[in-house]
């Protein structure tokens, strides 16, 4: 029997969970990224299933479970998505959403009205192959993880190409299917170098500055990290997607802590179970933290059995108050943490 891992405490404190599985309206369906506006509005990108129109949208809500509506729909027209992936919000409140299948970035206002789009499939400067993670610097320049081109591209807010860095390689500065991107207070760029199991830090011009982590599931090790966020004190938060956990590093890359997930019922989930009484009662009698021998003793399997654990934590984002939002594709929810006081 394997014991349930206790989350390491002391640095991160679980706050609450947002979300519920829903293909329409209030809720999330295979969410892959989130962003938080200055007004506290949480925008959640819902990927849904391949070739399924229902479910594809951006949900607007907040951490307290207030629901503000959705925008976007499935398709190839302006303001539509086919495989939406990353999301970021600039200083003006404009929302940028990448699409891995349409190889473009769409721009919306804070209310979700379509403004513009840029990007086309290809390998030349400004062209994209499966764009995923997005991040903005203080000047509203947009960094895009140009995934299958194994590089990061930097655009102006209106989509003009500025520069790119990285190529397929596992040496310093090389990238392998990069996913999440973040910019810190010094304007350095952090990349979740997914296929190389590490985080890299670059200067705003793309000069390699540091590499954090190696392959594995130990302290300070990663397996297919999906996202990265950096707080004002330089602490680095990583959604260690392949290990189904969140890792915290200090600014030098030293290991601080890791958590496996602590989800509780969101406001929407509690509402559902209070209405569906029979299901709620059966759930209350179920043991959702079983101690069993797993068919495959890996973290994906464990998280499939233990509902409170992160399962496919596809992104990690900070809000202005320093709260951490972990978006889980397989659990259709966002777990929120904060630094312990």
């Amino acid at each position, binding site marked *: 029997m394997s014991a349930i891992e206790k989350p390491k405490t002391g640095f991160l404190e679980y706050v609450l969970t947002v979300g519920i599985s829903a293909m329409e309206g209030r809720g999330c369906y295979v969410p892959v990224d989130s962003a938080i506006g200055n007004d506290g509005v949480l925008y959640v990108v819902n990927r849904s299933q391949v070739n399924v129109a229902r479910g594809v949208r951006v949900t607007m809500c907040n951490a307290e479970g207030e629901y503000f509506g959705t925008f976007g729909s499935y398709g190839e027209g302006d303001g539509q998505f086919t495989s939406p992936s990353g999301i970021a919000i600039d200083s003006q409140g404009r929302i940028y959403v990448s699409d891995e299948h349409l190889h473009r970035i769409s721009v919306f206002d804070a209310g979700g009205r379509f403004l513009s789009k840029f990007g086309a499939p290809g390998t030349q400067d400004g062209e994209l192959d499966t764009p995923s993670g997005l991040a903005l610097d203080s000047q509203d320049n947009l960094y895009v993880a140009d995934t299958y081109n194994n590089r990061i591209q930097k655009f102006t807010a209106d989509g003009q190409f500025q520069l790119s860095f990285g190529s397929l390689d596992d040496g310093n500065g090389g990238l392998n299917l990069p996913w999440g991107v973040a910019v810190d207070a010094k304007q350095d760029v952090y990349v979740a170098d997914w296929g190389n199991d590490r985080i890299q830090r670059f200067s705003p011009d793309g000069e390699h500055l540091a590499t954090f982590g190696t392959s594995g599931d130990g302290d300070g090790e990663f397996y*297919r990290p999906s996202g990265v966020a950096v707080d004002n004190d330089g602490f680095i938060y990583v959604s260690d997607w392949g290990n189904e956990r969140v890792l915290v590093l200090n600014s030098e890359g030293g290991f601080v802590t890791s958590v496996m997930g602590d989800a509780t019922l969101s406001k929407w989930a509690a509402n559902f179970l209070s209405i569906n009484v029979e299901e709620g009662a*059966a*759930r209350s009698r179920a043991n959702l933290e079983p101690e069993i021998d797993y068919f495959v003793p890996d973290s994906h399997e464990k998280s499939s059995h233990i509902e409170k654990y992160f399962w496919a934590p596809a992104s990690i984002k900070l809000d202005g108050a320093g709260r951490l939002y972990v978006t889980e594709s397989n659990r259709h929810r966002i777990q929120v943490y904060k630094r312990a006081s």
Partner: protein
Amino acid sequence: MSNSDVELIAHLMRRAGFGATRDQLHAHTAKGYEATVEDLLGPGAEQRMGDDLIRRFQPELSGMLNQNSSGPNWLYRMATTSAPLQEKMNLFWHGIFATGYPKVIHGKALSDQIRMFRRYGLGSFQTLLLELSKDPAMIIWLDNQDNHKGAINENFGRELLELFSMGVGSYTETDIQECARAFTGWTIANREYMELRSQRDSDWPYGRISWHFEYRPEDHDDGEKEFLGQRGNFNGEDVIGIICQQDATARFISRHIYSFFVADEPGVPQWPYTPPADEQAIEQLTQVYFDSNYSITEMLRALFNSDYFKSESSWYTKVKSPVELVVGVARLTGEFDRPRREVMDRYFRAIYMGQALNNPPSVEGWHQGADWLDTGTVVERVNFATQQLGDASKPGVQAMIDRIALQSEQVGTPESLVEACLDQVGALTVSDDTLTELVEFASIGGEDSLASDSPDGEARQRIVEVLQMVAATQVFQRC
């Protein structure tokens, strides 16, 4: 290396796998037939598209809410694995222990069952039956969660004997009831909540939760039972042990293996009344079953090395199942060099041809053989194969065109072009009539267009057209 060596190994790869590219056939032939059989039975570390890639770029295939997630996930595995016999056996067991989505309503539970076949499907049949009896999807599929001490539900016990191991006529109704008693208390954990969610197709609030087996001793009838002439306080493990000792079980599984890999037998319900087509083959496999302590690998080793399997008279006598056809084409075209949305189309194409992975038509599985073909499915099958082989943007098709251009340009005749095309799609052997028709087709437009100095685009287009015509032949639809 003679042509007949290549063609024999091509036959082996069609039956024990999903066909092979010309490069693969060349490598296998260089090693020899028996060594290739050993590679199939013990493929070593498997190479395939990684779960990490699939889960990242098609995240719904990670949580596997439903059959449209579990089916494509399996299709990726079949299309990219270096261990094709393992996946072929998964299809084999899926066809016998046929478990379907409409009742289970849990994509990952169905995928987990296939994963269990992958681990145990080439080992001891006794172990496989035991794991099957603990498999959560099977428990729900055949209601064993409702099989209680003092209030048995016979469903699993009946099918275990009738469809999974012995066949009708080898046991009594009392044996069924005693079998069911032995499996009381074999259920899934959190039965009430999980069953309710399944019945309501509920993925609320946070998606599916994996199921796992639970044995509840307080709900198990541990009284004395009489089963197939033996008496004792049997539990499920004991019953499976007794089942595996039976001649009927040995013949049942032998006949299934023969039907799947050698030649179509009539449907299982006919078996009590229709003798096997090759009694000697069944006797040989039955003997190996007992000699090897019920080893499926040993039965397959004996079968693949037998004269009845290798005989030219058995080549192309079986109709590829839709999944075998779709996977075979995908392996030939090499289209899944990375996760692609097209996997959903391929999954649905197999459904249009009559085979939905993780959703067999009944507990009896699919009817094989010529039953796959009707006027609608034949058109779908031919259209699919010709479309795919006509797409020169696919890496496998590009590679075939390059090699055919090299092979045929030295001679530059319609005959050489047809020969090269048949060779490249897997060393196909066609009848004289078919060959004549293919050559006539390749002759349209004259030999000038085949010459090495013809415009490159024109010559390549001719190759694509002949490849498509080869994909439309009867032998391409067969294995």
